[in-house]
């Protein structure tokens, strides 16, 4: 249990950062689509 909590926190932080990066990636795809359209 003592090992599990820091491990879970590290995985939790990674998940949250990946979520933020997925938002950036989705925005990039919108930019790309708009640029190709124009």
């Amino acid at each position: 249990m003592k090992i599990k909590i820091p491990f879970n926190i590290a995985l939790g932080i990674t998940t949250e950062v990946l979520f933020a990066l997925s938002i950036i990636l989705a925005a990039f795809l919108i930019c790309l689509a708009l640029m190709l359209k124009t």
Partner: protein
Amino acid sequence: MILKPRLQDIKNIGYYLGKIIIGLGLTMVVPVIIGLVSGEINPALDFIIGLETALVFGLILTKLCFTEEDLNWMQGMIAVSLSWLAAMLLGAIPLYLSGHWKSYLDACFDAMSGFATTGLILVQDLDHLSYTHNFWRHLIMFIGGQGIVIVALSFFVKGLSGAFKMYVGEARDERILPNVIHTARFIWLVSITYFILGTLALASVGIFSGMKPVNAFFHGACVFMAAFDTGGFAPQSQNILYYHSLPFEMITIVIMILGAINFKLHYHIWMGRRKELFKNIETRTLFITVMVTFFIVALGLTQLNTYPKVMMLLRKGFYQLISAHTGTGYQTVYAAQFMREWSNLSLVGIIIAMALGGAVCSTTGAIKMLRIGVIFKALLEDTKRIILPERAVVVQKFHHIKEILLEDNLVRSALLITLAYLLFYVLGALMGMFFGYPFLNSLFESTSAAANVGLSCGITKTTMPAALKLTYIFQMWAGRLEFMSVFTLIGFFVAAIKGK
């Protein structure tokens, strides 16, 4: 019939207010130490004066109003709203003494902007402000973002029931752990963990870009505090544009998004329930509204061909959008560029994003994602009722940590707060127009102040009318506390005059 407040009401409010003021005063020890260590003796003295003033007022209040009674709901709400005003008045003292603010009102404006995590500024010659004062500007954002009461709860307030009432009064209506003081401490754990990681990341980029290590860590810590607490102050007058660095901008985007996530959600993800991030109504709504508002902004920018390359559109368009949506207010374009280079469609996209905000129980302001999600679900429920046969039973649920049945009181509460924010945005815009500013500019600045964002299209200057400064201060204060505490305070004064 309205009842006149009792002396005991005033004593209870005064006692807890005094405790919070002492807590606030003690936070000034940090800039005093920074001033002494960095050899900035005069700035350190400014903070010693501020610290002494806070301690004197705090101790007088706790002695005069000493009580062992716990707070009731009304007293808790009033103590919170007055605490934020006291924080502004006391936090502005060292700022004003620095000589970088033209008047005490300007210093109060920046102090409220800091505590309410807005980011609008009236400071003069920011690039030559002492490290000590600059650090204080960012520290008050950190304190305000966490919640002034959270700071006091973590260390000073013992009564759990009174503590919870003040916690709710500060627009934090969710208890992460059963004990509100443990909740406050968990909020600190998340913030400190990210503070270490975020500062290291930003400082590393700074060092690689050629900054001196001490300077890089100072900038890293300041920018992290203002980004995670969705504030928007920066150590230099050019804001994030000063760094001219794509990695720096990317890291701040990630920090801003992390700051816009509900602390309760952080808790569940950190405890191993990682799927919650993808099921939660707030994160889903955030993802959708960010994409929709960014599409509007990007469409507007491509109309005028403001940024002809994909990366420029992302760096400029998306950065301002995410800064607006999370309520941060970091800018990588100058205020004047918004009006000259951005189309009206893009500006409307930014205004909508500012008006929406991040998650509840996060450091952001504005309407917030849970309310938007609940209203959308209610709309869906009503549409289903019309389409389905009359006998059909329509039950709408949403996922926020657990499955929650969509009940009328939830929808009513979400709609009321949304309506209050919308009215507030419009009233502020009317004030701007009264002083001769164009409609779109007025709405932009008013939404930015009331939603605690901090993006500026150029209205916020020392030369703007004092009445408009006071309007924005009021908007920042009431917007941060989500109105209820402020309405209770107004009601308290009405009761004191008209009550029997």
